[in-house]
């Protein structure tokens, strides 16, 4: 097999024949071909971790569902992105996210600008069948500019990744395991006393109202994560 042939992969996504570069993920190839796969922890410009499982897809011959954001394409793959089974699983994942912490959309700073809320609506969620856990979680408002409200956090780790990969500060990290996991600053210091550089990137990439800017009032808090690919491009050009 020649080098050129092995670098180009041909596969089928939702009965559409597509070609891809070796090493590309299913999600990247789907997006290039305008096939929409729902995502939450994925963000263009950051590494992928497959944390939220919303982008799960079916691959013919494989009984497991695989996250499209971290699954690399293979020659002859047959991918299905929107089967009834996947839709059911995605709704359940969203219900689990809503039930896990205290997401009170009506009084959230991100009401109307929240990726979790929007995905719920897009996936046809009208109620949560699981009992709400109502955990007692804190709010850290010690930072002069930003607040973290753990009630709204879905542990997507976008803040952790943007702080480590783009800002290079690695102030954010995850503490604890399983249902007890929380995002922390430094070694669980108050955010205001941490080594935070005050850049605000974590706030802009947070998909929910977990991280927000104190200067915003009510739910007037749209976020602008589109600076990331631009920033990466400019850095590569240097």
């Amino acid at each position, binding site marked *: 097999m020649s080098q050129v042939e092995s670098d180009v992969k041909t596969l089928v996504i939702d009965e559409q024949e597509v070609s891809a570069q070796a090493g590309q993920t299913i999600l990247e190839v789907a997006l290039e071909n305008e096939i929409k796969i729902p995502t939450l922890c994925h963000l263009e410009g950051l590494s992928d971790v497959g944390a939220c499982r919303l982008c799960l897809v079916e691959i013919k011959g494989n009984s497991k569902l695989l996250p499209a954001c971290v699954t690399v394409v293979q020659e002859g793959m047959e991918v299905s992105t929107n089967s009834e089974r996947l839709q059911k699983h995605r709704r359940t994942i969203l219900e689990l996210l809503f039930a896990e912490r205290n*997401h*009170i*959309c009506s009084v959230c700073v991100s009401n109307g600008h929240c990726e979790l*809320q929007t995905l719920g609506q*897009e996936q046809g969620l009208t*109620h949560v*069948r699981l*009992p*709400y856990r*109502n955990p007692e979680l804190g709010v850290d408002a010690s930072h002069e500019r930003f607040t973290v409200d753990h009630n709204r956090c879905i542990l997507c780790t976008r803040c952790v990744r943007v702080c480590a990969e783009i800002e290079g500060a690695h102030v954010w990290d995850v503490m604890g395991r399983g249902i007890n996991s929380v995002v922390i600053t430094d070694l669980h210091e108050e955010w205001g006393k941490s080594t935070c550089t005050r850049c605000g990137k974590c706030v802009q990439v947070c998909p929910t109202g977990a991280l927000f800017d104190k200067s915003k009032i009510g739910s007037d808090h749209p976020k602008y994560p589109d600076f990331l690919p631009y920033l990466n491009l400019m850095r590569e050009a240097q």
Partner: protein
Amino acid sequence: MSKLKLATVWLDGCSGCHMSFLDMDERLLELAEIVDVVYSPLVDTKKFPDEVDITLVEGAVASVDDEKKIRKIRDHSKTLVAMGDCAITGNVPSMRNPIGPEAILDRAYIQNASAQAQIPCVVVPKLLRVVRPIHEFVKVDVFLPGCPPSADTFHTALTALINGGPLDIPALTRFGA
């Protein structure tokens, strides 16, 4: 043809859903030609009727009284609609869940009282430990999220329910809308 019987109920909510219902304005006149409002905070009936075609429930289940009411309402309603986020998710009333009723009552009636500090124990119903959406107690037929659902959402949904037409709720509204 006899008119459809419509009931609306107010459990633990702020009445905002009922206000939004009234925001249908002149469309209420059209509605009044095809339905009779047989029970509601907006009318004077004291007893929930035996047979209701459509019941809209605002608010979450927060007290023993709410729980008793919602079970009775379910038994006597053909179609039960959870109206608004409180009925569907617990919403703002459920914000007391991580704190517990004792601390809440203490804050409201003891710490913040300027005179005769005491927690009410007669007439007012006992609070449940946690505020729950109504579908955790009874079967709900239609979920209409929103805080509150808009008047247009009410109009579209009610028209579809009355006429038996198709109803795509996520296209109309969402949590927090």
